[in-house]
C-alpha cells in the first residue's frame, strides 16, 4: 500500500514500486491527484492537461503516478519503506501567485477540526498570520 501526502490531505491506495515509477490503478490517479486520466489528457472538470505520450504514462493496465504528477508540474518525493509519496503544489502556480501578488487559496482545519478556506473570507481585507508554538 502507498500513502500519498498532498497539500490537500492524505490518501492510501494500492501501488507497486517499479524502478523510479509508482504504479497505481488508473482510477486512483484522480483519488490521489484530483486529476482524472482521460484520452484527452489529465482532466479536472473542463480543464485538461494534454498527455503527449500516453504509452510513457502507462505500464500495462497501471499508470505511473510520478510521471502523471510531473506532467502536472508537481514534485514527488518517495519513501521506499514504508511506501510514502509526498507531492508538492504546482510549482508554476506558486511562482505565478508570488510574482503576480495574488493570495493563494488554501483549506485548513480550525482547532475543532472544522475546515475553512481563505476564499471563505473573501471581499474583505485579511491579515494572514502564520505563527507556531515553536
Amino acid at each position, binding site marked *: 500500500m502507498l500513502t500519498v501526502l498532498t497539500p490537500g490531505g492524505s490518501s492510501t491506495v494500492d501501488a507497486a514500486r517499479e524502478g523510479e515509477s509508482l504504479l497505481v490503478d488508473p482510477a486512483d490517479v484522480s483519488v490521489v491527484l484530483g486529476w482524472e486520466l482521460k484520452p484527452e489528457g489529465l482532466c479536472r472538470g473542463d480543464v485538461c492537461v494534454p498527455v503527449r505520450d500516453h504509452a510513457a504514462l502507462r505500464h500495462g493496465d497501471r499508470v505511473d503516478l510520478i510521471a502523471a504528477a510531473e506532467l502536472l508540474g508537481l514534485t514527488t518525493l518517495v*519513501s521506499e519503506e*514504508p511506501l510514502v509519496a*509526498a507531492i*508538492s503544489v504546482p510549482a508554476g502556480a506558486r511562482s505565478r*501567485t508570488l510574482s503576480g501578488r*495574488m493570495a493563494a487559496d488554501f483549506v485548513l482545519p480550525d482547532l475543532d477540526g472544522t475546515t475553512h478556506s481563505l476564499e471563505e473570507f473573501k471581499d474583505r*481585507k485579511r491579515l494572514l498570520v502564520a505563527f*507556531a508554538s515553536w
Partner: protein
Amino acid sequence: MVIAVALDESADDVREFAEGISFPVLLDRDHVLAELYAISNVPTVVWIDADGTIARPNSAEVGTDMFVDFTGVRPDEHMDQIRAWVRDGVVPADADYAVADLEPDEVQARLAFRIAAHLRRIGDEERAGTWFDRAARLAPMDFTVRRAAMPLRDVDPFGDAFFELYGEWQAAGSPYHGVPRS
C-alpha cells in the same frame, strides 16, 4: 479580519494561543502555507486586500514587545501601518516587494518534512528522524523545516539547538523569503 495559521503538529499545542480569540485560528500540520506562500519562518504576516491581491507580502512581524532586544522588530510600528492600510488603503514603501520563489531544494525539504511528520504520526520515530535530517540538509536556513522539527524530536525549540540554528542563519546573512528588514 485576522486569519491565524499555526504551523504546528497538534491543536493542543496551539490552544493556549487561541484562548479568548474570536478570529479563525487554523492548524497547518503539513506546512501547506509554507509551501504555497514560500514562508521560511514564523511569525510571518501577509496583508491581503479585499480583491485577493497581496497588499504587502511576507514580512516578519510580532505582536508583542517581548522580542525587541533580540530581533529589533518593533510591533507598534507594524500596528500603525496596519491601521493605515485598513482605514485608508495606504501601504508602506516596503510593500512593493516580490517574495523570491522557493528553490527546488526548498520544495523537496517541505516534502521531506511532510514524510517525516507522517512517519512520526504512525509511530516510526527512527525513520522520521532520518527524513527530518534530510529536510534539514535540503533547506538548512529554513525555520519551518529545522526549528519546527525540534519539538517533534524532543529537542527544545527555545534551547541550544535554536541558538545554534539562529547563529548559522545570521552568519549566512539572515536569508528570509519576504520583505527585508531595513
